[in-house]
């Protein structure tokens, strides 16, 4: 059965062999999963969020479970972009899949510097810009909540790199499509959504927030209907490709995102529960297409809007 359906997706000059990526912060630097997943079978994977310099992250506890979800407040612990290039990328040489770098900063200049550095590395296929972080020069306002900041940031990054730029949107806004439009006007090649939804769990024994950081980001199955709705809304308003993410744990939900308008999808939290889930989802999408006689995945993108 498998093989006679066309799963490939084009994004700018990139061809993805299938629409399944793995989400930043849930797939390490890829290598950690090579024991469970043939990385070459993936459409691509997105590495842990990188900052210009190494970051230690937040104090523990950093995670807590919620009904069909979890909160995390890792605080973007990472080794920094230079060590990533020196220590991690060499281990990823020779792979036949797309490696996407996820970057964030607290000032436009930081993003730009990282984009410049990563632009030179041929192993990196594209950049995903995490705007769910406070902009220190703008007094701590979140980049991702302000369409003007998203615009300026995207324009600045586009100037220094030829690699496709994906702007990853936060769901903690009133009108996500409006922010997506700002990214599009600024020349973004795609938007990905959703990042985590801010939440809090209280430890009633200690009468304090459970997480040391007080709030954390909600991810996992619980949030998928919100993500699908937001992809649907963004698809109505922008023309650039959408990457759907949020609570995907099986092929059905992946297909819901695709039908709502996503050209590619990312698997996040589900990797923790089953490290082979990404491959199972690729298979599941293929089976669905065979059963329903769909020869190309592109025919399913956004069909809900017809």
């Amino acid at each position, binding site marked *: 059965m498998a093989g006679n359906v066309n799963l490939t997706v084009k994004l700018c000059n990139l061809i993805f062999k299938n629409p399944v990526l793995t989400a930043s*912060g*849930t*797939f*390490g630097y890829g290598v*950690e*999963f090579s024991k469970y997943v043939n990385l070459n079978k993936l459409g691509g994977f997105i590495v*842990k969020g990188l900052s210009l310099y190494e970051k*230690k*992250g937040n*104090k*523990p*506890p*950093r*995670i*807590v*479970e*919620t*009904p*069909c*979800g*979890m909160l*995390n407040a*890792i605080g973007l*612990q990472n080794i920094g972009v230079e060590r990533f290039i020196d220590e991690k990328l060499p281990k990823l040489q020779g792979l036949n899949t797309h490696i996407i770098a996820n970057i964030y900063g607290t000032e436009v200049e930081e993003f730009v510097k990282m984009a410049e550095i990563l632009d030179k590395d041929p192993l990196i296929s594209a950049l995903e810009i995490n705007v769910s972080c406070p902009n220190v020069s703008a007094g701590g306002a979140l980049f991702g909540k302000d369409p003007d900041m998203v615009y300026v940031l995207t324009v600045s990054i586009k100037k220094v790199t030829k690699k496709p730029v994906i702007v990853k949107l936060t769901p903690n806004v009133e009108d996500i499509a409006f922010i997506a439009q700002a990214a599009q006007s600024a020349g973004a090649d795609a938007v990905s959504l959703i990042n985590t939804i801010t939440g809090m769990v209280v430890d009633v024994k200690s009468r304090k927030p459970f997480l040391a950081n007080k709030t954390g980001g909600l991810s*996992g*199955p619980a949030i998928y209907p919100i993500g699908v709705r937001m992809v649907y809304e963004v698809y109505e308003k922008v023309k650039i490709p959408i990457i759907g993410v949020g609570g995907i*744990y099986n092929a059905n939900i992946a297909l819901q995102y695709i039908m709502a308008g996503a050209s590619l999808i990312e698997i996040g*939290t589900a*990797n*923790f*529960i*089953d*490290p082979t889930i990404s491959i199972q989802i690729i298979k599941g999408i293929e089976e669905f297409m065979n059963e329903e006689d769909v020869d190309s995945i592109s025919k399913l993108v956004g069909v809900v809007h017809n």
Partner: protein
Amino acid sequence: MRLKIVEKRQVAKDTYVLKVENPALFDILPGQFFMIRINDFNYPLLRRPLSVAGFSNTIDFIFKVVGEGTKILSLKKEGEFIDFLGSFGNGFTINSSKRLVLIGGGIGVAPLLYLKDTIENGYKLKCESYFGFNTKSEVFTSSGNVSTMDGSLGFKGTAVEMIQGDLDKNSLIYACGPLPMLKKLALLCFEYGCEMQVSLEARMACGIGVCLGCVVPTVNGDFKRVCVEGPVFDYEEIQWQEM
């Protein structure tokens, strides 16, 4: 990896032993753990970490019901299959030139039972064990020296109190148990100059080092992951004040 439950039995108050068939695919070091999927669907969402308490024809776990996940686990029946990932973590290192002292508190005794078995029957070495519980009804082992807080079985007091006067520079402590006990032991080790390998717990999402959820603070002001760099740490690595 779906493994069949060979035995599930209550062994003490709220405490169960769970034995699953050993697929004989790997060796497991004492101190290592598995990530257990409680149900075949997405609730509870995250896997639960459980240490190996015994390893032979079966892989054995001893767990305490403390919340929803362990509650559901306690209702599983023999013959059912459970999904395991592992084994994970670094495990204890055995040093034959030392006086080996195992100190466990409550359910923290579980991994030490497998360590004891390995030391005595694998390495053919000797070790001393001091296992403390709250009360008789919670005691799930007859091996080693047992203490209870209320004196209902064995020595009256904590496991630490049982041994504390008797530690020396040559002792290598293997410890697992509640945090206050471990902190107490860390102080003692500083004082007596003895070594200690301590098994720590942390909330885990992935168990394989990628979520960065399970970190503990280290003396150099950094964080280490319990699932990869641990769960067993040299006590001198840990920033105990921040634990």
